């Protein structure tokens, strides 16, 4: 298993370590539900250094992204970030990604478990393009601060940047814990305000400790992947291997906002297939809530009468909603808020109600 630069910090903080995407990562430091509340109410600190980070340079870096990704890279303003997916010709994703448009480079953040497949896919579609590829996963640590007190927490250890001026899905560079020219983005995977910071691996421990130390004033705690999964599910954000995978497409997943059919983007891999699905979808990803005690889990069948109508993609105990929640694909005629379907628990049933996604969205000031 691979170790992040912060690996040895986690167990002394109470971190329970598990394998995730080939990395040895903290799943939780304390009760998962307390960690969820900490992020919703205050601020949490995350080691995300397992995420794949690639830099593309050269005159055709933008063209490569526009060939393989669903978002319209040439239209992203410098300093902005867009969500997109890498799809096969079938429209089924290989991964979902964030695209950072820099002055001279494109920076991609991808899922740890798909990083090898992503790299291979990118490099096999460079025909006729002048692009240099660099994998920065090992050399950069990635630390996230998420929660309403993220800005005040990060500001205590940051200079050379006005964080208040950094808009949502924008990035800039600043000095973090003495490390100059660090990429800072106002992004995250929790539904809260927050930042993701990319700093040299050798400065990661110093920064992590300084952030935790100065974060005490804001009630900061380290947060594991378990709470991160609940937070992103509450916020209606997809996770590869759950809501999206080789069998599902971004249109029916509700991710049209990350898919550009703009004429000027030209042809791209998966475009024709996704346009056809967009014209005539048959299923939709929905939210489910249940008043029962049983927690929905990936793979559980959903029944309408005696008919098997779908499968749970993700499920969680949601302290924010106050119920157990899940996502699933349902045929369009059942994918209506208020519709009731039953979760099958080895012959026992528990009723679930269709609700709009997301389950939670923060009030923006």
């Amino acid at each position, binding site marked *: 298993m691979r170790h992040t630069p912060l690996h040895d910090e986690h167990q002394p903080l109470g971190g329970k370590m598990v394998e995730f995407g080939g990395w040895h990562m903290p799943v939780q430091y304390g*009760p*998962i*539900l307390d960690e969820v509340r900490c992020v919703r109410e205050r601020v949490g600190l995350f080691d995300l250094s397992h995420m794949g980070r690639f830099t593309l340079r050269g005159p055709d870096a933008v063209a490569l992204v526009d060939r393989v990704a669903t978002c319209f890279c040439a239209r992203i303003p410098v300093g902005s970030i867009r969500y997109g997916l890498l799809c096969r010709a079938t429209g089924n994703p290989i991964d979902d990604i964030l695209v950072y448009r820099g002055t001279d480079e494109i920076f991609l953040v991808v899922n740890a478990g798909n990083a090898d497949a992503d790299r291979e896919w990118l490099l096999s579609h460079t025909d006729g393009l002048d692009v240099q590829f660099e994998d920065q996963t090992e050399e950069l640590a990635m630390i996230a601060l998420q929660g309403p007190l993220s800005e005040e927490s990060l500001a205590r250890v940051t200079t050379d940047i006005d964080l208040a001026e950094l808009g949502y899905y924008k990035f800039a560079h600043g000095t973090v814990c003495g490390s100059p020219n660090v990429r800072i983005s106002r992004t995250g995977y929790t539904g809260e305000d927050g930042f993701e910071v990319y700093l040299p691996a050798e400065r990661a421990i110093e920064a992590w400790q300084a952030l935790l130390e100065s974060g005490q004033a804001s009630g900061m705690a380290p947060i594991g992947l378990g709470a991160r999964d609940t937070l992103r599910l509450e916020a209606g954000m997809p996770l590869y291997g759950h809501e999206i995978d080789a069998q599902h497409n971004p249109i029916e997943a509700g991710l049209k906002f990350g898919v550009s059919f703009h004429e000027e983007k030209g042809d791209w891999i998966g475009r024709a297939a996704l346009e056809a699905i967009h014209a005539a979808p048959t299923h939709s990803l929905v939210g489910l809530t249940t008043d029962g005690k*049983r927690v929905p889990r990936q793979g559980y069948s959903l029944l309408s009468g005696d008919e098997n109508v779908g499968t749970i993609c993700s499920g*969680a105990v949601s302290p924010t909603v106050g119920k157990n929640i899940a996502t699933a694909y349902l045929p369009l005629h059942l994918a209506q808020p208020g519709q009731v379907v039953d979760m099958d628990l080895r012959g026992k049933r528990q009723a679930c109600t269709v609700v709009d996604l997301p389950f939670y969205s923060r009030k923006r000031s």
Partner: protein
Amino acid sequence: MRPDDRHYLPSHEWVKSDGDTVVFGITDFAVEELSHGNEDDLVYCDLPEPGRKLIQGETFGEIESVKAVADLNSPVGGEVIEVNKTIEDHLQVLAKDPWDKGWLVRVKPDDNSTEHLLDAAGYEASVGEAEG
């Protein structure tokens, strides 16, 4: 060392003789695996009704935490005669006292065979590597 007045399955259930009945429970290791030391992370325990016939090695219930669900396996076969109803609403009892107050079901066993089960030393050895 875990209690040596009972027998164990490698899947972390214990069975203890009590007169002509036996009681089943799960070990501290099972609770730790499910809750990572946070008793509030346990959310649900599904136990059988009295009268249910249990088959040795087969599932008699399920226990679930925020992030995981696990089968409860019968160390011996028999008939359920009593269920610890306290558990279903007070899962933290399992974390506080899995050996006594955290018992799950009382069973009238089909026979008294224990050769297929681990003793305390055998169970220690089987979890030793995982705990290492």
